[in-house]
């Protein structure tokens, strides 16, 4: 971890950047923003840790806890909404016993996220399973897909 953090920090020092880009690079590297990373950057750069935390909790992109092995992303844009995105989302959550807050299964396998709009509006409702687009989908189809993920 320390090596990765040193790399991120030296890039920051060379090319300039800000708290947001530091956090983005950190998340790209670890899948989330580890506390140790924030403490390290805060110490090295003299930027208050509270500032990092404020930014990390403001933007939807940042995760403060590790992400599951697999990721299910339900689009909740308007086009998907009028075609039943909410029902699909609650179906997935019920199946996996997760909520908006506790979005990763207890075994750390699957994270379920909402996203505002993926731009696949003509294929609403859309769910991404590990990045693969499932358009005009249903709760059952997604759950089937999730079950097959678990076997992998």
């Amino acid at each position: 971890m320390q090596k990765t953090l040193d790399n991120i920090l030296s890039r920051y020092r060379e090319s300039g950047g800000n708290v947001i880009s530091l956090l983005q690079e950190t998340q790209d590297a670890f899948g989330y923003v580890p506390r140790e990373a924030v403490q390290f950057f805060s110490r090295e750069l003299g930027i208050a840790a509270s500032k990092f935390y404020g930014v990390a909790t403001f933007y939807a992109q940042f995760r403060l806890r590790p992400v599951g092995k697999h990721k299910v992303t339900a689009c909740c844009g308007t086009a998907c909404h009028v075609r039943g995105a909410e029902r699909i989302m609650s179906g997935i959550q019920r199946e996996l016993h997760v909520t908006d807050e506790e979005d990763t299964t207890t075994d750390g396998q699957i994270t379920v996220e909402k996203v505002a709009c993926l731009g696949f509006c003509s294929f609403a409702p859309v769910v991404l399973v590990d990045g693969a687009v499932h358009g005009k989908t249903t709760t059952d189809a997604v759950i089937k897909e999730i079950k097959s993920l678990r076997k992998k």
Partner: protein
Amino acid sequence: MASETLIRVCMGPAGIAAGGKQVIEAFHAALVDAGVSAQVRERCSSHQVGCMGLCARDVLVEVHQGDVKTVYQYIKPDMVQRIVDEHLVAGKPITEWLVDEVYASFYRKQIKVVLADCGRIDPEDIDAYEAVKGYEAARECLTNRRPEEVIEEVKMSGLRGRGGAGFPTGLKWELGRKSRGDDKYIICNADEGDPGAFMDRAVIEGSPHAVIEGMIIGAFSMGARNGYVYIRAEYPLAVERLKKALDQARTRGYLGKGIFGSAFDFDIKIKLGAGAFVCGEETALIASIEGMRGMPRPKPPFPVNRGLWQKPTVINNVETFANIPAIIRNGCGWYAGFGTDKSKGTKVFALTGKIKNPGLIEVPMGITLREIIEEIGGGIESGRPFKAVQTGGPSGGCIPASMLDIAVDYESLAKVGSIVGSGGMIVLDADDCMVNVAKYFVQFTQSESCGKCVPCRVGTKRVLETLERITTGKGKEDDIERLEKLAGGIKAMSLCGLGQTAPNPVLSTLKYFRDEYEAHIRDKKCPAKVCKGLLTYSIDEATCKACGACLRACPSGAVSGEKKKPHRIDAAKCVRCGACFEVCKFGSVNRE
């Protein structure tokens, strides 16, 4: 002849979702089998061209033979063999699979300025852009014109900001030019946050150089030496293409020092947004580029006077910049020839919802809603009655069916309580509950509120709670009045545009669909049968085939029944999820 055959398969996001990759593979296999040589290319993919718009018909396949172009729609991998056999080998196109009249009418009413090159040229090739006169406008401005002349041209074109508020672009540039300071910034806002609008993504993916050229011209006009594109991290392809385009432009000397041999220096950096709708607001966007929480600050001072790093800053959105090269090339008169008196030019809309041909369209301002929905969109997909169209996203409103003949321009939409906004256009039919739609948008703005000012932070929460009450059958008589009071207060008192417009979806639905609110509150009924809490499910014993589908689907164990005996729903256990209703093949589940 065979060697001249080119097959293009749609591989945009929608094409991929519809199975474009499999179609390409099928073509490769079938062509080998048939011994036909033809080039198979990806359309809309990362290596060829941008999206053409009519994604609903995917997978679209174009067969080019010499000058003849044939377009097939809804192609699945198993249909490829027949195309190869009958069309390519036997020379007879398969008429029943061809795109129909809708495909033609989808394009007939459209005028493409911003989207002109999207789908026509390779966005990753600067030569392709220069072949269609790309960078000529910027060269002309930097070598032959004074900044004031360029600003005048843009002013006379009547172009107004395409991001939502419709502020005249030329005027903004003029204010930027007049603002004192040697360090000035120009920012392209590509933080497309409206759920249901994706034109900015499409433009950057389809014609990134047009946006860069627009920014160069803007920077020259106001005297900015540094530019930023603030773009959503959720758009990886757009970011990728923009990066490539910037590198190419830099290599050619179109960015950097002494552009086009002039004395003008300018370069552009990319900043990735991190997922906050409010960062579409100018001052929040600036805070975000500075690396802070995207909380808006009050204006004045306006960004043109004190913006990024406290320096004069002009912010325009992607579509606005993409209009600029065409305006300079063709002249302000040409551009002002489209549109209405006060709303000039064309506008890109993301037409989605219950429409037959959803997709990205570009139309002249002033076109009627009816032309968009019926002619371009092909009407309602389900054949159910058209109910309303929501324009402008979370800051906009719902326009009822009775107003289909109004013109689509800044003034007309504002007059009926909606806005053009960034160009989302969601078509709703009789199956959509307007209270639910209002609730959806308030839920969105409420979760995207930055939390800085009280009216937006607490007010939208109270509006949402009231709507939740209404849609779950707990509405009270005075709730409509409460909504109106909250909406008025939030509009008047919020700090930024997000809060000031957040009540619009509620106000416009209250105005045109008050009866639906009343049905929810007084009769505890959802006329469109959408609101879960107001529905009861039962099984019609006469038609139930006891197949057990509902029994298996029910998540709460509310359905009971044995083989060959009609099933029943225990209302006390029912969570009203509607799963049984969806799975029943015999229409035996009643929903009221």
